[in-house]
């Protein structure tokens, strides 16, 4: 595993690509969080005058959803392109160890990306005495979310030898994960108004995922197509019949009814909800377990998708 890890890490820094990704990431995120005002929050960082990194952490999920897939796209695809994939798979070591070696390399690269933003905390220190708790919490949240995105990228990278396709698919999934978090307000309202509809929505998401999985692992295209279409129709139908409600944003409620339980379940699966809580400076076991689960799930999927190739 150590050899694979070193090889992958060297791969990042041997070419200008690794430096390029870090540089681009720093420029984009700093430009957005220091100079510009993407959230319309009342001027740039200096004008708002708040000694915090809230804007930085606020836009990190969106920037990471694009940049991290660029980091992870090469993890398996590069081996496929260079025809070293078969060599790796025939080595007398378990697939999971190879996958973990690659994953940890991606993780270290992510840490390098985050370290490259150290100028921001230095700036906070220069302008006063910031509260370091939320800054520390924010970096933990970024690391956990980034680690989950690396796992997603690893999984997608194992599915195709085309790096561009791998990047694009991983980016879509990561953006989807962030987007679902943003939609929680609407789904929560729907759960309260119409728990059945929300339930169908909630079930249809893994259903579509299962369809994609069936296509990847089982190579059963027809089954996959049916499942995806059913999931899609359920979603559209429910939305059309219930209408989107986005008037109010609600909190987590007591699980006294189906709707309330649903709202609680939604809060539990919304990645951004956990990210925001840790980012504010509140680290809880709930969020940590969730992120670790997400990582384990995608690494597991990656291992089994690779294993399935042995038998295809």
């Amino acid at each position, binding site marked *: 595993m150590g050899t694979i890890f070193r090889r992958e890490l060297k791969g990042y820094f041997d070419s200008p690509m690794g*430096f390029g990704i*870090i*540089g681009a990431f*720093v*420029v984009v995120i*700093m*430009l957005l969080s*220091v100079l510009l005002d993407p959230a*319309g*929050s*009342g001027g740039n960082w*200096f004008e*708002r*005058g*708040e*000694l915090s990194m809230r804007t930085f952490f606020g836009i990190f999920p969106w920037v990471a959803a694009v940049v991290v897939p660029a980091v992870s796209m090469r993890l398996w695809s590069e081996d496929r392109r260079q025809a070293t994939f078969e060599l790796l798979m025939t080595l007398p070591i378990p697939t999971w160890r190879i996958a973990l070696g690659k994953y940890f390399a991606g993780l270290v690269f992510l840490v390098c990306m985050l370290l*490259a933003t*150290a100028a*921001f905390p*230095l700036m906070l220190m220069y*302008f*006063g*005495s910031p*509260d*370091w*708790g*939320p800054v*520390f*919490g924010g970096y933990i949240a970024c690391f956990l979310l980034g680690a989950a995105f690396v796992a997603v990228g690893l999984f997608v990278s194992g599915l195709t030898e085309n790096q561009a396709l791998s990047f694009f698919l991983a980016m879509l999934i990561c953006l989807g994960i962030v987007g679902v978090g943003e939609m929680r307000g609407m789904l929560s309202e729907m759960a309260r108004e119409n728990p059945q509809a929300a339930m169908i929505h909630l079930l249809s998401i893994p259903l579509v995922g299962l369809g994609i*999985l069936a296509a990847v*692992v*089982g190579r059963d295209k027809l089954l996959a197509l049916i499942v995806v279409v059913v999931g899609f129709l359920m979603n559209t139908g429910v939305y059309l019949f219930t209408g989107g409600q986005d*008037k*109010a*944003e*609600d*909190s*987590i*409620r*007591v*699980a006294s009814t189906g709707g309330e339980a649903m709202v609680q379940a939604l809060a539990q699966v919304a990645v951004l909800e956990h990210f925001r*809580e840790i980012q*504010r*400076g*509140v*680290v809880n*076991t*709930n969020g*940590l*377990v*969730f992120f670790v*689960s997400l990582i*384990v*799930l995608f690494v*597991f999927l990656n291992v*089994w998708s690779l*294993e*399935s190739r*042995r038998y*295809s």
Partner: protein
Amino acid sequence: MVNRKRNFTLHFYLMAALTTLALGSVNYLGMEFRTRLDLTSDKRFTLSEGTQRLFEKLTEPINVTYYVDEEPPAKRINLERDVRDKLGELAVSSGGKLQYRIERIGNEEASTKREELEKKGITDTVDVLTSGTDERSEMRGVQGYFSSIEVSYGTAKPKVINGIVNLVDKADEAREHRVDTLEFDIAFAVLSLRNDTQRPSFERLLKTRDKPVRLALYISDPMGDQYKPLAENLEKALDEISRQVPAKVNYQRIALGEDAQALQKYPFGDGAIRVQPFDVKRELVMDSDGNPTDVKVTPYIAAVIIQTDPEADQFQAIWSFKDQQSVADMRKVIEDQIWEGTRSRSRVGFVLPPHDPRYGQQPPNGPPLNGYTPLMQYMHDALDYETVYVDIKKEKRIPRDLACLLVMEPNILSERELYEIERYLNEGGNVVLLVQGWEADLGLMPDSMTNGQAAINKVDIDPTFEEWAKHLGVEFGQDLLLRSNAILQPWQISFDRNTGRQRASLYPSTIKFAPVVEPEDLNQSSVFTRGVAGMPLPFLIEEKVNADRVRELELEQTELIRMKDDVFKFIPEDPTQPKVPLKLNLKSPAEVQVEPKTTPGKDIRAQKLDHDPLIATLLRGQFPSFWVDEGRKVPGWDGQQTTETAMPVLNPQKGNLLVMSSAASLNVNYFTGYSQVEQQKVVIPRGINFYRNTVEAFIYGDDLVSLRARTGVAPRIVGPVEDSTRAMWFMFCIAGAPLLLLMFAGLRSFIRTRERDDYEISLGIRESK
């Protein structure tokens, strides 16, 4: 033959199911056994113990609705985000007992929505728009927007918290309701709603009353056809109410004829109440030829008059019943009104200085009229307390059912009065002592204004009172404290030469002896000082607490107000006849000694203090008896000592003693120089806040005191940032890391080239050999 592919697929699905199950279980366990770590320095996302205790006791959910403007002022752009964060945190920390929703109000619907919101008691939050810096700002106008919270709990009427702001600039720190005080605001609202919810059933309320409630229905008879159902429903509702406990309801139906003037024949209390009609029918009266001669007015009346105390000349009237109201609805409206009139109110006692002849004649049985009368009136009218004037000399004892006793200027209390106050305190009473060290007559006559100086007088503090306070560990300073932010302005009375009349004009200067409390002076975590920033404290003296003595007595001390920086003591030119120069400039080296340790010169009128003076403090615990401890005899009412030894305290309990060293904070005599607007918006509310907070804290006791009054917020950049500094840091943030990386990559490439060159050179050497 073994189908390996099928086996693998089965194995995969099995593993997938097991993994999903395992991850689901782990997540569920993480949710069930949730532990959290608040990394913020002030634990701003952790509920205070008081709030946690309160939430644990609640049996019903708390519903919070935040009404916010879709387009708030530019500087409040993060307001909704900040409030949402806080509410979200409260929702999670309350374990699901608090639920919230955010209602955004757009510009288009604002006018239609406004009416609906106003009915709920929701009003605009107003920002004063200024230009310039914090220190030197100019007002440009005002801007109103919605930012209010409605808290519902149980069956009680929801409470509204208006004017919620986030902390953007220093001025916001003086606002009463802020994002960082939201935990307190909501918890306190719930605390009072919980008390309201615990009201007894109506039947029980009636049964427990000594005197019957008098109900009178004034009803038009005959009633117009279209209103007959209304009249029937109302009569049924009143019948039902009166039948519940007949002995405790005195119900009377008074039929009013068609004649509008008949109203005057049915006065409830000597014509004090004139019942309003809910509708009026106007018909033309025709003569025999069919010409209109008059207009006949028929009022339709269906009004209920309620007199909860037959001995008091006070009535409540409900006259706006509606057609669509059911019997139950009407009954509820009437019962609510009776409840409102009979529920017990907190009694606040006042010990007042003697009558001031400028306020007119002293009423025979009423409290003395003086500068504190408006405070007493305001606490009764606006804060809904039952205010009681306590004439200790006359009553010989302080009523033990008082929630709080406010003692204005205790300097001149007799020894026996002080003895009674001590007994009340020792039996678990709550006492606020407002000590006056100096005073001035601000209706300044020209002869008292020699050289533009206002005459001030030192108020003697009674030696027994001083000794008594010292016994409890509190001592008072002699010096009059000044501050450059003082805002008191005197009137100058002069004579008009032409008319010979007196003329009052505002003296164009500020006297520096009413320091204003700044946010940093206040103990921000204390409920006593919430919303007090901005309160002027005329004639302030310092108080000192002897920590050793307080410890010895096992009292708990909390500092409430300590003036930070920029505090001076006044140095009179003539100690026997001290006069404050009205134009005293506390920044002028000619008049002011800024070096605290140096002996002031002859012309120096003020000297900076070398420490931050304490202004208000709270002592809690079981107070010792000054008389018993010292083995003294009980002082007599005539000022002589009796032979009687000090009476032992029968029911010793922990009491609260709050000592403030400026009684005049709400003596309106000192604020006559203010415009009405400033008096209404600044001076009175701030002072009232202090007394209201204190009384409420004493009423609710530990439940309220243990709530955290505020949490911290993200710190801000201090002072202006130069453009060059801004550009430098921006460039560092954007380009610092990429440049470093570029250098690293270049270095790496250089080393590799060198290595390759070395390798090639060594190869070349080898080949040449």
